[in-house]
């Protein structure tokens, strides 16, 4: 076979593989869109569920997920970014920091149900927070931290060392170099990591199962110590735990969750490209 035909064959094969990868994703989105569109209405988004969740809307679950994601962000972003700056810019390479790095890498691979059980033991029971938004957000934050830290560290390390040297040579303290040069350069990467982590937090069921999520609670939480409904768990409940649930409600709920996650993703992409464009040195 000629080299040219080999190449054509190679391209064809690769295209096929790409299609195989993308097709299921498109199929999932397509089915959810087609089946779920019918359920979406202003009422569906803003009303309390009733009649065993077979009627009404998903308002408390949507609000719950937004609050949980916000809580996760409030806890995870400062700790994650601050910790990473310490690890990447200040900490010397010692046994302790190596252990911390190893722990972070491994934490990223732990199944989310384990975080859920940890949250139950640590926050709900031991620290007596009860099943509450606080306990749920803390659990989600712990799950999110490794993602934030590893991507942020990667971005900080990709900023050329020379900038640190130049900044120091001009009388900059280490913090000034970080504040004025390193962080602005690393920001797009850091933001990407944050959003990826929060996306995961918004969509997970296992970590909130025992720590915050309510099966059926048709009112909004009044304080961080209240439990709340949340979209992923609600979806799980109406898909598997309630007999006779109309299928368009399931698809509609899935569609809202999907839209939430995709719009966060889009937001991340926009922020990132905005900072990229400003970067250029």
């Amino acid at each position, binding site marked *: 076979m000629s080299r040219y035909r080999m190449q054509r064959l190679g391209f064809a094969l690769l295209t096929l593989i790409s299609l195989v990868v993308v097709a299921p994703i498109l199929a999932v989105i397509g089915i959810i869109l087609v089946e779920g569109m019918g359920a979406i209405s202003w009422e569906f988004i803003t009303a309390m569920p009733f009649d065993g969740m077979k009627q009404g809307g998903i308002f408390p679950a949507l609000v719950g997920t937004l609050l949980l994601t916000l809580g996760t962000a409030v806890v995870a972003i400062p700790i994650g970014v601050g910790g990473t700056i310490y690890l990447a810019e200040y900490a010397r*390479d010692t046994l302790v920091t190596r252990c911390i790095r190893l722990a972070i890498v491994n934490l990223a691979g732990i199944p989310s149900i384990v975080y859920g059980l940890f949250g139950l033991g640590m926050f709900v029971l031991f620290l007596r927070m009860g099943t509450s938004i606080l306990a749920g957000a803390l659990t989600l934050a712990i799950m999110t931290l490794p993602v934030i830290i590893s991507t942020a560290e990667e971005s900080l390390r990709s900023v050329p060392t020379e900038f640190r040297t*130049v900044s*120091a*040579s*001009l*009388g900059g*303290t280490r913090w000034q170099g970080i504040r004025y*040069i390193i962080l*602005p350069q690393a920001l797009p990467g850091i933001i990407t990591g944050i959003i990826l982590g929060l996306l995961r937090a918004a969509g997970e069921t296992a970590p909130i199962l025992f720590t915050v999520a309510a099966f059926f609670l048709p009112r909004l939480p009044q304080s961080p110590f209240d439990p709340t409904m949340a979209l992923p768990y609600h979806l799980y409940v109406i898909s598997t735990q309630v007999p006779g649930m109309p299928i368009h409600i399931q698809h509609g709920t899935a569609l809202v969750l999907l839209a939430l996650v995709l719009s966060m993703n889009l937001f991340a992409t926009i922020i990132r490209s905005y900072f990229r464009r400003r970067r250029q*040195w």
Partner: protein
Amino acid sequence: MVEAKIHIDKVSYAYGENWVLNDVTLDIAPNSVTVFFGPAGGGKTTLLRLINRLNDLVEGTQMKGRILVDGQDIYNSEIHIPTLRRRVGMVFALPLPLPGTVRENVLYGLKLAGVKDRSRLDEILEQSLTQSALWDEVKDRLDHLAVALSGGQQQRLCIARSLALEPDILLLDEPTSGLDPISTRKVEDSLFTLKEHYTVIIVPHSIQQAARIADKAAFFLMGNLVEYAAGTELFTRPRKKKTEEYVTGRFG
């Protein structure tokens, strides 16, 4: 003799256990151009980076001896390092503009030092760019990105960036090594005018350049200071055989 601006006293230095400077002693007079030259790996860069304590950033090093600037031991624990580095400016072998505009680059050090007075900043901006022979070329694009400048312009920008802090001492580590001959010429010319106001130590990128600009010259070989004398003397009548071999190009 005038009191030495910089007094390097029996300095030895190691990265890990690898000693790259051995018992180096030399005095540098104020308002002069001193050249450190010799083959790569001789320890010239290291010695320069000891004078503004930039090698503090490197971990796992050892140092013996003292370095005095204006009679003050700069490795004394009471020294405020950012202040020292403002007094001892440095320009690196490769032009390393910071992210941002020409103006931001020149004024970066002053921003860190907390200088806010607009008219003073503008004044220093023009003054340092003029001193580094760049003003005419960039005065209409002060707010353009620094990376858009040519390599030679970037390097003069880096010189201006150091000058903006009004240092007494300027350390230049092969500042023209990445430049074409015309840019090199411009940078060298700007250096000549500088020595009236600054104590300059420069690692040249060629012996010709060393001979052109040196008031005094120090020849380094494998971490040892082989010979230190007036430039006119060292390049025409070197006393040590090793120096002669290197200067006449028979080194190797």
